[in-house]
């Protein structure tokens, strides 16, 4: 079975992001970029399935600018076998990415897609679900445990009330939650090997996908600064303030 893992290039989780002065977006010039951490978990899970003999090949896919190659190299340094870059300079929104991935899935015919549940830049949490819907495949989101037996998938998901276990036929789409696994470090020999692994470059045009943004960004601004707290003298005063000032009880 082939596993397809979409990986997104995002601002590194360590970087303190800054909003551009004109409010048009986040400043990414010369900022350190990395693989979306949820996608690292997806790559790790796919590699583990390969190591367990369930999967035969792990293919990483990234959609975006030419530098997404670095993200694909990072996935291959962890253990993905090859990469596919769908290259475009257009700002990609979840629906466009889902359509691109659908086109790649039709080309590659994987038995399973494992995606991060969301990306840490826009936190949209949409692409995996949209992809499953477009493909007409079953989906299991927020996976914290994945087991493949006899061509069936058993996925434990983290939901508000606790854990839910689903059984799905393959092919299917999984999105990963934080506790699914602990991604491995790319070892130095594997970083060197990743350089020699192939990356195919495609374009949205060649895949016949219109990626024109459907949403317009009106304004990006910093969240309001947290105000200093106040010391209250008694429980009564606290209740009074919660009721009359904050109006929460």
């Amino acid at each position, binding site marked *: 079975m082939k596993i397809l893992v979409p990986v997104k290039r995002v601002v590194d989780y*360590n970087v303190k992001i*800054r909003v551009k*002065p004109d409010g048009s977006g986040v*400043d990414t*010039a*010369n*900022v*350190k970029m*990395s693989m979306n951490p949820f996608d690292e978990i997806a790559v790790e899970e796919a590699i583990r399935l390969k190591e367990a003999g369930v999967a035969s090949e792990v293919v990483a896919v990234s959609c975006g600018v030419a530098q997404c190659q*670095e993200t694909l*190299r*990072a996935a291959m*340094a962890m253990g993905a076998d090859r990469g596919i870059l769908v290259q475009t300079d257009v700002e990609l929104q979840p629906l466009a990415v889902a359509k691109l991935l659908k086109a790649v899935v039709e080309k590659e015919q994987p038995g399973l897609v494992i995606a991060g549940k969301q990306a840490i830049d826009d936190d949209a949490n949409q692409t995996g679900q949209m992809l499953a819907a477009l493909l007409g495949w079953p989906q299991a989101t927020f996976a914290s445990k994945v087991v493949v037996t006899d061509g069936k998938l058993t996925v434990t998901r983290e939901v508000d009330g606790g854990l839910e276990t689903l059984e799905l036929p393959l092919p299917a789409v999984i999105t990963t939650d934080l506790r699914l696994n602990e991604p491995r*470090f*790319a*070892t*130095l*020999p594997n*970083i*060197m090997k*990743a*350089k020699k692994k192939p990356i195919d470059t495609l374009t949205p045009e060649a895949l016949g996908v219109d990626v024109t943004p459907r949403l317009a960004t009106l304004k990006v601004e910093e969240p309001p600064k947290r105000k*200093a707290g106040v010391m209250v003298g008694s429980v009564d005063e606290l209740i009074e303030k919660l009721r009359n000032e904050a109006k929460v009880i």
Partner: protein
Amino acid sequence: MDEKLISRRDLAFQLYEVLKVESLTQRPRYQEHDRGTFEAILDTAQQIAETHFAPFNRKADENEPVFEDGQARTIPETKAAVQAHAAAGFLVAHHDAALGGMQLPAVVVNAAMALFKAANVSFAAYPLLTLAAGNLIHRYGSEEQKKRFLPLLLDGRATGTMCLTEPHAGSSLGDLRTRAEPQPDGTYRLFGNKIFISGGDHDFGGNIIHLVLARISGAPPGVKGISLFIVPKFLVDEAGRMGARNDVVLAGLLHKMGYRGTTSTVLTFGDRDGAVGYLVGEPHQGLKYMFHMMNEARIGVGMGAIALGYTGYLHALDYARNRPQGRPLANKDPASPQVPIIEHPDVRRMLLAQKSYVEGCLALGLYAARLVDDIRTGNEAERARAQELLDLLTPVVKAGSSQFCLKANELAIQVFGGAGYTRDYPVEQFYRDNRLNPIHEGTDGIQSLDLLGRKLWQNGSAGLKALLREVETTLQEAAGENELAELVEALRGARDTLAALIMRLGSLMSGAQAEQVLANSFPFLEVFSRFVLAWQWLRQALVAVSGLRRADLSEDEANFYRGKLHAARYFLRWELPQIEPLCRLLERCDPTFLSMKDEWF
């Protein structure tokens, strides 16, 4: 996770903008690499440092190794960290592809190792010693020794040590007494005591490969009779399998001020019938072999001091930006909100001093590591120049960085105030850990004698001439920048003063006053270090000025370059001129130290 280790932006500045490390990939040895692999390797280093090293830095400090059933017990996280480092391939990274290595440039290896040291210097000591032992056996071991021992050191099945010091012989190695008795089978049996042996015992499983200096029976006295031996903790058969325990006994552990996660051991060789040892290279050449590796080991010590200074600075900076205390002098309203302490000029003074020390020393340390790459892969002229320069700069990288970066840690505590003096914050530990660096691998005093007694003059002062040419090149490049005029003038003036001083000391050294000159070696090292760091700052300022001219500069990027430029101004205005009174004393060979009498104390 935000561990405040070393600024990756600064590392990228040093590697790609100042040292142009990408150009190394033109050379056959490094052609498989590009900036992408360098960054991926630094990412892996940072991830492991943040996961396995930094979170246990305090725990290792609070739980120093204990002596139990004849063995050193460490906290279990030590083994996990050492193994994670080895499993990622860092022990073999710089070696030939034929050995399973990545042929990674020394400058990148040093940058990666610095991240581990900033995260937890006492854990990082084990791999550092293992790297050094591997390098030594690789360079001087016989084919058979390399086959038997090297793989263990490259994949983490063994750690390494350097056994030099004995209870009565530390800096004075010529007096060491450990004895090696030749055996009919060509091996030796060693008898003697060694002390301050870092990593001399641990409980990670696996083996320990001790590299031991000892005297073969009947060897000439002094440094000319010292040989180097491989002495494994567990005997190793020809296939590299671990066998019986060798006669190396852990006699005790030392209880240190800092670096507590690293065992510091007292070892007895030959408590029973002698520890089996294998002679490395020729008899009586041991010190030469050890010291050939010393340049790289001393860069390693300097980089450790820099890493500790750097992480301390980042912690102090973060604290100063977030700790509200007091109001600007002009604000007399007690009801107005307090300002973060970074608003106070004296706090900015302390942060600026730290920035100038740690970033200046980082520039120098990586410059020195870059010279190692030239020695390995340059053409003949580059190799010769790099070797001369590195020999000269090594005492500065080692002792200069140890002094300036320890001072940085002291200032970090000061920025934290009373909080910094408590163990609730990490800066006091950085200071205690860093206090070792002016001592081990040759004390500051030894380094200063090495510089003033030997390195300045060797090979017709070839190193000094090479340095002065480099400085002149920097001055000429900077002369075209109006913004740097003040700095160029300051460095040129210092250069002229220093050159005149060295001329004068040189003539006195060849005469009867050598002892008087050398009595002042330590202040000379300080003068020389300040000058070299000022030069490194002008190099950084040059890159910053051209960086500021880039068209698409974001505000953060512009601020980064402005910060570099301002730190350069600070160092050349406030730190460099401190050499002047010292130069006046040195020039007239001030006899105060030499003439002081024991009885007068």
